[in-house]
């Protein structure tokens, strides 16, 4: 079959383009993850804040981003944030135009969606560590900030790992949605290839396999990490 030619590298095949698409997919997921995790903490803190307005904001945030389809969040952000930022920039430097690239739009909207779920991972993990640890640290005279960084965070990691691991897998798959705003990641490249080659089965089948492999690889890595961080702790799960 000439399927091999379709997927070859160089000028006559789509192999190299797909590889670059895979690179963009991975880059997007990897760049988004740290922002998503930081946002998860911020949203959680907003939800347990002393201030009522912050608490309401945190609730609204999770409700909205857990209810809207990712694709809708993405479209609204891509066009609307553009208009708002553009307007702000215009009022500072007249005549200047900022443009959010699809990559950045993807990063922002995926961070928003993932952190809505992530704030719950943080809540559960903090609950598992227990408030006693924090109180003990404070009674030793540590400031809240130091207590969090030196005492809570090292213990939190173990409890948050399964949750964040799952979110990483969701994130990896959700990057495919950014193809609707024409970011040349894996799914978008496959779509372009099909436009000229008319072989949807080959290309969609291939990228499906690539995603499954990526997810399986991530899950294996996650299990290993979990085993490692849980060394020395009693296992309660079956």
């Amino acid at each position, binding site marked *: 079959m000439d399927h091999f030619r379709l997927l070859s590298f160089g000028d006559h095949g789509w192999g190299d383009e797909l590889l670059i698409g895979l690179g963009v997919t991975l880059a997007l997921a990897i760049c988004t993850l740290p922002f998503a995790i930081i946002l998860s903490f911020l949203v959680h803190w907003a939800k347990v804040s002393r201030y009522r307005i912050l608490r309401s904001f945190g609730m609204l945030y999770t409700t909205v981003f857990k209810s809207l389809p990712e694709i809708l969040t993405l479209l609204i952000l891509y066009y609307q944030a553009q208009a708002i930022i553009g307007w702000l920039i215009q009022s500072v430097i007249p005549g200047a135009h900022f443009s959010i690239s699809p990559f950045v739009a993807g990063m922002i909207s995926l961070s928003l969606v993932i952190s809505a779920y992530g704030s719950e991972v943080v809540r559960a993990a903090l609950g598992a560590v227990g408030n006693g640890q924090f109180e003990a640290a404070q009674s030793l005279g540590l400031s809240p900030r130091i207590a969090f960084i030196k005492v809570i965070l090292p213990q939190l990691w173990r409890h948050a790992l399964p949750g964040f691991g799952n979110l990483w897998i969701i994130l990896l798959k959700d990057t495919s949605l950014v193809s609707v705003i024409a970011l040349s990641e894996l799914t978008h490249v496959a779509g372009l290839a099909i*436009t000229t080659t008319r072989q949807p089965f080959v290309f969609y089948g291939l990228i499906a396999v690539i995603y499954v492999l990526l997810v399986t690889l991530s899950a294996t890595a996650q299990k290993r990490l979990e085993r490692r961080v849980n060394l020395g702790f009693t296992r309660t799960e079956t």
Partner: protein
Amino acid sequence: MKTLFKMAAAATGLVVAGLASASAETLQIGTEGAYAPFNYVSENGEIKGFDIDIGNAICAEMKVECEWSVHDWGGIIPALNAHKFDFMVASMAITEARMENVSFSDPYYYNAMRFLAVKELALEEATPERLKGLVVGTQQGAVSVPVLDAYFPDSEHKLYPKMTEALMDLESGRLDLALFSQFTAGEWLAGSSGCCEFVGESFLMDGTIGAGIAFRKQDDELRNRVNAALKTIMDNGTYETIRAEYFDFDIMTKPPYVSELFDK
């Protein structure tokens, strides 16, 4: 590699456009990239086609650098207005509805639409009566949508995000007909398994003036420059050379309007 570099540039953050100095002006051109032979992405990841050659010829005439990017058709006008690029060469038909959101150059060709039908149906004509109850596919946001709504209300309409997706469904038999640009449909037909054929005449949507280059409404100065460059390349033979590479027939003749063929 070039794409990878661009991606890295995009990843570093917000891209500032419009701040570029006048001496080395770079313009961003947007297109769809799924509309062969006018604009498409080739095996080596390059954006190619008639639109791209025309756009580049205009840029060369204006002595500016041009960079191309592809965008989803459904959001291409908002993308232009959101400064994702400076102007659009994407075979967009000039219509009054679109002129509420963007402004257009003079037409650079006439893109008539024509029905493609599955051969098995053996349709001899494509009239509203004959198409009653049949499934017709076209692209979301294309000028063919209002035409189907107004003149073929008794057919079932299916709207696709991309033209090629509708054509794949025509080939597999999910659609009975598809309504597209006769040029793009002809290009696709030449490379298909022989499932389908043209039926009926080609026609323009009422009120369309041809395919134009689109600009933000406030960018009149840019529009005038591009119009002047377009006129130059049409007069000096550059346009003809490019046209001959893609089509061995004239694409500046104006086909009849749909209202001249059918009744509402």
